[in-house]
Structures are given as C-alpha cells and as structure tokens.
C-alpha cells in the first residue's frame, strides 16, 4: 500500500460559516437528535440487550448480553487493565463483574454478572446483508439510558491481517550471532511469558531458528492472538513457554500515520481479526464491544474496533454465535 495518501487537512477556520452559506442545524445531521429518533425501536434493544462497561464512573465501552443469566461479551483489550470493572444493563448496575475468559484471537472477553431475567440479543440469520444496509450501535449513554447511532454496512466482509505481521514482541541484540533478546515490549506476549533480556531463542514450534528471517518465516501466516511454543536458553538452562502473538505495528507504535492523526481516538487493537464486517457509524473508540443491530433490532455483529476516522469493524454474527457458545460452554466446564 502506498505510504502517501492524499487528503488535505485544513484548519477549522475554513469551515466557519461565512456569507452566502447555508448550514444544516445539528439536530438534523446524521448523528443529530432528530435523525437518531427515527431509530427508537433499535435503541430500545440497545437499552435492554447491550451492556455498559464502567471503570468507576467512566464509560469505557459496551458489551453484548448473550444470556438471561448474566453472560456478557465485550472487547477484551479495552477492559484489560481495569481494576474496578462494573457493568450496567438497562438501568441496573452490577458492581462485581467477573472476567471469566478471554479469546485473544478475536479480542473478546466473556464476563458474568449476578443477574437473572436479562434479555439476550436476538441473532440475525446472516451477516451477509447488502452494502448500504442500515446498522445501529451504541452511541453514548447516560446512567440510565442508552443512545443509538446509525450508519451503513460499507465494505466487504474479510480478514484483517495483523498490521505489520504477527510478532513475539522482542528486539534482538544485533551484535550477537545468536538470537539473543535485547528488549521485551511491555504489551507483548513475550513479556507475559516471562522472556527477558539475555535469553537466547532456540526453537519456535519445535523448529530450530538461527536467523531472524527464520522467525519471520514461521510467524508469517500465524494469527494475531494465537500462541506459539518458544524454547529459549537462560543461564545454560532450557525452557519452553507459550507466547501470544501481537501485531507488530500495535506493539511498536512510535509513529502515527497521517491518517491516524486525522482520526481522533482509535482502538489500540485494530488488526488481526479472522473476519470482520465494516460500517461507517461515527464514534470514538470508547463505543466498541456492543452489538451491531439491523433495522429489525437483530444482532448482525459485535463492534470490535474503530480502525480510523472512516472505518469500523464488527465480528460477523456467525462468528459471534460460535464465540459466545464456545466461551459459555468452556466457562461452565471450568
């Protein structure tokens, strides 16, 4: 892809009203109150079947209610570091929300709140709705009321490969002839697995590695969020650990592109999804994790990333159903 994408950003001065201009009152704009009011029946579904994720009093995202007895799915990376997580469904707040499981490939967490009689989402029969179809999702919320925002399906369903490729999250000592670790990224799977500076990587998935290119070859087709077995040597002792893979460009985010700069807040984890549907609902990265509804109020997907100013990703309903069933089954077995 070309590095230089063309679109001028002009200062706000140029868009201030001047003589001879007509301007549409904000109520009647796509995100305006009067337009949003047309989506009241879908908003009511969000009221009962979406969950609000709270860090103390601050809303940090949304969730999908997937069972009457309190199972909720949300975007895992948005709640990863939250100490006092609570969940609001409809008008009731549940202070003791427990994270039971995380699927790191899809970046989905399963939560349980102590509740009964919740209204789970009704799944749509298929995510294969034509481009241009209306979709509705959580916009903002008050303590008691959800707000809706609408947009359309705007591109083909597809995989979003890990940006920059899947990576362990280590830098190697260039002076060493061995694959000696020089640094470990703080947000990486390598860090979680306990890898340290000075460790020497010997094998990955049982295959001997001696050059950095060989690591690249093994990781080339791996999914972000999946794990690989890494054998390393530390003080003459060999050890094997599972290391979670992350997108290289999400680990080493020292440079924002021009498109990032014009996008406002975007999701930290925004690549490496096996399958997504794309929509154009205007919003910040704080609105991920909730259901994506069609005009029937049925759940066609779950919002999983705000990629940039113009592109939002959702997990398609077929995959969402599979994830929900699998995680709930696993949680019940634990």
């Amino acid at each position: 892809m070309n590095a230089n994408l063309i679109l001028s950003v002009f200062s706000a001065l140029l868009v201030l009203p001047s003589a001879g201009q007509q301007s549409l009152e904000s109520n009647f704009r796509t995100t305006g109150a009067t337009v949003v009011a047309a989506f009241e029946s879908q908003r009511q579904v969000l009221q009962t079947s979406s969950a609000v994720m709270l860090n103390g009093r601050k809303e940090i995202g949304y969730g999908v209610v997937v069972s009457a007895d309190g199972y909720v799915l949300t975007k895992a990376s948005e709640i990863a570091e939250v100490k006092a997580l609570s969940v609001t469904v409809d008008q009731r707040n549940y202070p003791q929300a427990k994270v039971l499981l995380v699927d790191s490939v899809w970046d989905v967490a399963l939560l349980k709140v102590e509740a009964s009689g919740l209204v789970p989402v009704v799944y749509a029969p298929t995510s294969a709705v034509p481009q241009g179809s209306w979709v509705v999702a959580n916009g903002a919320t008050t303590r008691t009321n959800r707000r809706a925002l609408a947009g359309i399906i705007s591109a083909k369903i597809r995989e979003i490969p890990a940006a920059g490729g899947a990576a362990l999250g280590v830098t190697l000592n260039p002076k060493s002839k061995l694959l000696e670790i020089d640094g470990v990224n703080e947000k990486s799977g390598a860090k979680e697995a306990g890898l340290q500076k000075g460790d020497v990587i010997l094998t990955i998935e049982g295959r001997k590695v001696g050059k950095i290119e060989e690591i690249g070859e093994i990781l080339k087709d791996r999914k972000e969020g999946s794990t690989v077995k890494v054998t390393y040597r530390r003080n003459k002792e060999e050890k094997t650990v599972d290391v979670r893979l992350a997108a290289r460009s999400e680990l080493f985010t020292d440079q924002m592109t021009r498109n990032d700069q014009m996008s406002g807040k975007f999701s930290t984890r925004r690549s490496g999804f096996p399958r997504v549907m794309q929509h154009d609902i205007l919003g910040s990265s704080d609105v991920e994790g909730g259901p994506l509804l069609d005009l029937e109020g049925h759940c066609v997907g779950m919002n999983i990333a705000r990629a940039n100013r113009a592109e939002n990703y959702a997990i398609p309903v077929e995959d969402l159903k599979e994830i929900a069933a699998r995680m709930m089954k696993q949680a019940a077995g634990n």
Partner: protein
Amino acid sequence: MTLKNVMKSRLSCLLIALLPWCAFAQEGRLYVNDKKAPDSRKDLDAIQKSLISVLPKARAATVCIEISEGSGSGVIVSPDGLILTAAHVATGVKKKVTIVLEDGTKLKAETLGVVADTDAAMIKITEKGTYPFIDIDRAESARLGDWVFALGHSGGFDKERGSVVRLGRLVRMANSTFQSDCTLIGGDSGGPLFDLSGKLIGIHSRVGQQLQSNMHVPMSEFIKNWESLEKAEFVGEGPFAKKPEKGTGFLGLATEARKEGGLRVTKVGSKSPSETAGIKEGDVLLKLNETALEKREQLQDLLKEMAAGDEVKLDLLHDGKPQTLTLNLGER
C-alpha cells in the same frame, strides 16, 4: 387591514407551502430528502433501498489513482474513460498516472486540466476501451440536507475490501464547497459524492478537525471549467496544485561539447531522472526534443524554458549505439 392585504398574505403562505411540492416533483428525487429528518421505518427503508440499488453502478465507476506522490480516488464519467478527481490528486497537467479499477485492473492514464483554486481536475484513460461510468448532476439539483453517499479508496487500494461507502447528509453549502457528514480519510481525495439517485454531485477534497467536516468540490465547478479541463489547461493560482514554473526542471547530468557534435555525459547525478532513465557517463546526447545539441549552453537554455515534470525526448548514443528515450524532468 384591507382584504387585498389579507389575500396577499394568504398567497405568500400558499407559495411557501407549495415549494416542497416543486422539489418533490423533481425527477428521481427521493421524497425523504424533502423531510427535515426520516421519522418512520418507511423513510429509513426508502433511503436504504435507493442506496443499495444505485451502489453497484457507482462503485464500478469509482477508481483508485496512483501517482508518484501517493494515491487518491476518482470517478469515470464517460464510456471512453474521462475521470473527474481533485486537483491535489492530479497535481498538474499532462502527467502520467495509473488508474486501478474496482477489480484490480490497472490502466494507463494522463492528467488533463486542473482548477487549482477550487481543487477540481480531469484525467483521461489513454488505453482504448469502454469503461463503466456514472452520470453527472448537471442541473445543480443538490439541496441542503439531502442524503448523499461517498465512495473512495480510503487508505489506498484494497481488493479484499473494495472501495468504502459512507452515508451522510449535505450539512453546509457554499459557492465552491459542499460539506457532508460522510467521514473521509486519506486516499479518499478525488473520490465521488453521489445523491441517492446515483448522480455525481461532488468530488472529495479535504477534511476539518471534526468528523462532520468533510469537504467536497461541487459539480458546478467542473461544469464551469469543463473546456479548460478537457484542453489540459492549468486554471487558477492554487493552493490545491502548484503551477509549474519555468526553469525548475532538471535532468541531473553534466556534459561537455564533443568535436564531432553532440554533448558527452561527464557525470550522472545519483537518483536523478537521467540515472533512472538509464543514462550513463560517456553517453552522448545528440538531440533534445528534436533540437540538435552542439553546446552546453544550448542545453541549459532549452531546459530554462521547461518546468519540473515536463516530458523530454532525448536522442543519444548509449554504449555507442543510437537510442531514443523519454523522461520527465525532476524538480530542483
């Protein structure tokens, strides 16, 4: 108050009440556009139905434009491959660009005219063929609040994804700019803005800080300058494209006169247009644009009259063999 006056005021009321009806009667215009906002499932369905029905044709005509400086978007408006885009995507007149269709087909094209002060430009596909195209709104029928949709290759061409469609309303209209709440991003520049009947009403130009500040060049700017655009003229002074200045172009080589005529190349600049074209030290330049070269000053004088980006034709001896090549002058 006289009866006459009462009559008058009734009449003006009537006229106001009649206005939406006139708009309603306009051919192909969706009734929802004449409501302040959609307020029923029927209204939402009507918007969705129109959009889905016109989208395939609009998408087929939307292209990605690749130039040396980056990538933008554009839209085909005639079966023989006339494309409208933004001036800051075309960057100038008579430049070689590559067009990428939705299915990934790449085509050679050349920029025609630009309107540098309002960001309008035209490109022509130079390969013969019949191309998918869309109709232009020539009647300036777009109104404030109309539902519109944007297409473009956001972030560059991506075959798996296709061009990205966004729905919004016309939220501000001024003489040379439309503003919509269809969110645009880098790579969308030059892409099309359509009304819900599938007619082209604008070309994406720029964004402001807010998500709702997305600026488009109205069709009227293109229609007004159509002849100049077709004739590959540079209109206006900027800021969206810079007029090529004489004397800014360079070949990137040093020469000395040869007794038997021609100029021997004594040095080729690293990464210069000459190096890229394959010219080597020891080659002999014989002609530039059909003018025989005998003195160094002669070459300098010819270049002084040209600008960066201009195409030049060189006849030379390369490894002793006659050769003709064309290259574009670099920018000093």
